[in-house]
């Protein structure tokens, strides 16, 4: 802040130069640019005051909810409903869900609200769109359960049982945590509620978070039989939709119970059919390997090949280790036919999928141990002339020299491919 008379002189001389508006220190500032950047989101149009109103209103509602000011929240909510008439179709379509979530929250806690009010609100909201109908029905049912009104809840749900499975899948996974905590709270409150929940679970559908919590509770109270029954029912009842998680829960439970191997195998067999690429498959393979039955051994080989069919498992060193070892074992056990059978369907595409020269170089760079295992498998299945095997065998690595030698020996001994042909 200099003596302004100096400023006067300065400003006169500087005014003559043609310069754009620049402020010292902080660099260039273009407020008009900021405004344009802000409009990119709205497709180039400046945000209308209507939109400003609704977003400000939403902010106030959220603030009121955080502070537990139900009165105020209801007041702002009253104004927020106009978003259902927004000329912007995106906002209009997203509105019902937001309104439902906020509105139900307010009605849940507001002192003046009652079950009647909630019911009316839920019914009104359900009439906006099909997707919302089911989501809201479920949450409505939960609310009623919380108030101990089981019959109403049941009536609500059984009416929709045929729709629920397909449409609820994404919904349940998304709200998993919310339901977990919700169901947790319910259990803490009373046994009676849990009995009600049992009835709920018997309705066909996908109830993963419920089942998990319920079983946990049963185990806690020492009711192992009950837990087993619930899980078995959930997994095997044909009326229920095919759900891999059901089998996983059952398997984990039986593992905890230290059930006999036969039982575990039978459970995992079904999982194998549904999700052959699941990470539990390696455990399954181990179980099969240790079993005494021959069909199990054959299945074990099948399972391993099955796992490695999937792109997600190509770098799984355990899987390759198992395969390498198991191939040797199988061939030593004179079960060439098994290997040939598995290889028949794969020989057209496995070489380029797993054993191309690109993979050889890339695997060797990334993980030498993995590359060695794969080389062994490649050598056995494709013969020592295959690219992968040749590349690896040419590699000279101090640490793995011995291993590579072993691999060469095994391949020589066990290769499926007849060098003569």
């Amino acid at each position, binding site marked *: *802040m*200099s*003596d*302004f*008379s100096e*400023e*006067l*002189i300065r*400003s*006169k001389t*500087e*005014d003559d130069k*043609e*310069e*754009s*508006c*620049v*402020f*010292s*220190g*902080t660099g260039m*500032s*273009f*407020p*008009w640019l900021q405004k344009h950047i802000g409009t990119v989101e709205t497709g180039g149009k400046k945000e*209308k*005051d*209507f*939109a*400003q*109103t609704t977003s*400000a*209103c939403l*902010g*106030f509602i959220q603030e009121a909810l955080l502070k537990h000011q*139900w*009165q105020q929240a*209801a*007041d*702002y*909510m*009253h*104004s927020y*409903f*106009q978003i*259902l*008439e927004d*000329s912007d179709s995106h906002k209009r379509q997203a509105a019902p869900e937001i*309104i439902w979530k906020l*509105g139900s929250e*307010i009605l849940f806690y*507001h002192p*003046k*609200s009652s079950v009647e*009010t909630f019911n*009316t*609100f839920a019914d*009104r909201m359900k*009439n*906006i769109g099909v997707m919302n109908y089911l989501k809201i029905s479920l949450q409505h049912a939960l609310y009623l359960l919380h108030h101990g009104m089981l019959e109403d809840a049941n009536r609500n749900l059984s009416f929709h049982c045929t729709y629920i499975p397909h449409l609820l899948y994404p919904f349940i996974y998304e709200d998993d945590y919310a339901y977990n905590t919700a169901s947790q709270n319910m259990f803490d409150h009373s046994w009676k509620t849990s009995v009600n929940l049992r009835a709920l679970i018997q309705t066909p559908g996908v109830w993963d978070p419920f089942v998990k919590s319920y079983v946990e509770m049963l185990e806690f109270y020492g009711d192992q039989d009950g837990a087993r029954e619930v899980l078995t029912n959930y997994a095997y009842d044909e009326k229920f939709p095919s759900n891999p998680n059901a089998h996983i829960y059952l398997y984990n439970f039986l593992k905890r119970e230290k059930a006999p191997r036969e039982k575990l195998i039978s459970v995992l067999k079904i999982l194998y059919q549904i999700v052959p690429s699941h990470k539990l498959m390696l455990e399954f393979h181990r179980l099969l390997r240790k079993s005494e039955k021959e069909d199990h051994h054959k299945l074990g080989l099948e399972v391993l090949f099955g796992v490695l069919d999937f792109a997600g498992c190509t770098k799984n060193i355990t899987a390759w280790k198992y395969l390498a070892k198991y191939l040797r074992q199988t061939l030593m056990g004179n079960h060439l036919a098994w290997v040939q059978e598995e290889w028949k369907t794969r020989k057209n595409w496995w070489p380029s999928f797993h054993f191309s020269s690109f993979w050889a170089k890339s695997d060797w760079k990334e993980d030498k141990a993995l590359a060695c295992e794969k080389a062994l498998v490649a050598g056995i299945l494709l013969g020592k002339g295959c690219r992968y095997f040749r590349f690896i065998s040419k590699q000279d690595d101090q640490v793995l020299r011995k291993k590579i030698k072993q691999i060469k020996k095994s391949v020589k001994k066990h290769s499926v491919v007849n060098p003569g042909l």
Partner: protein
Amino acid sequence: MTMPRTLAFCYLSLLWQRETITLSDLLRFVEEGHIPYINAFQHFPEEMKLYGRDKGIFAIESWPTYEDIYKKVIEIAKFLDLPRFPDITEDSYLHPNILCMKYLMEVNLPDEMNDLTCQVVKMTGIGEVDFLTFDPIAKMAKTVKYDVQAVAVIVVVLKLLFLLDDNLEWTLSNIAEKYNEKNKEDKPWFDFRKWYQVMKKSIDEKKQKWEEARAKYLWKSEKPLYHSSIDRAVVYKRREMVVSLQKQFSALVDSAPTVEKKSPSSFQFNWTEGDSARTCFHGHGLQGILKKKGQSLTTKNSLYWLSTQKFCRSYCKHVTTYEESNFSLSYQFIINLFSFLLRIKTSSLHEEVSLIEKILFKRKYGKTKKKSRSRKGRKY
């Protein structure tokens, strides 16, 4: 013709009549609902059916902004080929002297500052009849933003008195406070700090209420507008849904005594003497910040800083920008206060302040060709 243009046209007629209403007042009345604008069509007679393209005109989703309406005022006047408007003389409400007085009262500043504002108006020549009167056919057809300009003059005066560098104004406040404590019987000296505290509280309250009102504003009317008969059913159904939901929730809200809709007033703040809760500074004296110099008084503060160092001459429509962080907090507060009062953007006000300074200092410099380091004093 659209709603904003209609409003601009109304303003033109008010200007022609030299009514005691500024553009910012007009727009504020629209926002407060005293002038039908948002859902004006609700007041139309039954026989008038609106549909199709009428929707684009009448379904407004934004309040009118000062800059926009101002532009339209000039456009329409040019389009209609209007002649030079009736003169705005020193007696008219829109003359800066009068408007300055009005705004000084509104923001609770001492009446004595009026002399200073008149001085500045005189020195810059913005009180001249030719400058103030709107002449659409003139080469640079522009109508003066009467309200913004008056407020800008006040800002300049505040800068002259207090410098507003986050330092001097507080030092002067300390002096005033000391004096006031010792001399409780005399006319109190104006204390910037006290004024700041009172104003900040009041303006924050007002702003909060304003934001809440804006968030709760109901844009859609009872009679929804639709494009065609196909839309009609959908639009009506939506309205029905919204109304029923609103009804349900309004039952939950305490039927608090609804605030009576205030009648339109030009003043947003009212200060009265003797109100202990909200000090009124109108009668306070400026002795603490003025000092004698020969026969006249001059400001104790002899420094000044310009709001804009360089003016932009490129094609952008602005001559200057306003980057808040470059300025002192006191200056920011003052600008925010007045911008809120007039409901304009802070950058617009800042620009106007800069333009006034440009004239003020250029003129001053133009008179004294020699580099005489004369300090500017307000001579009484």
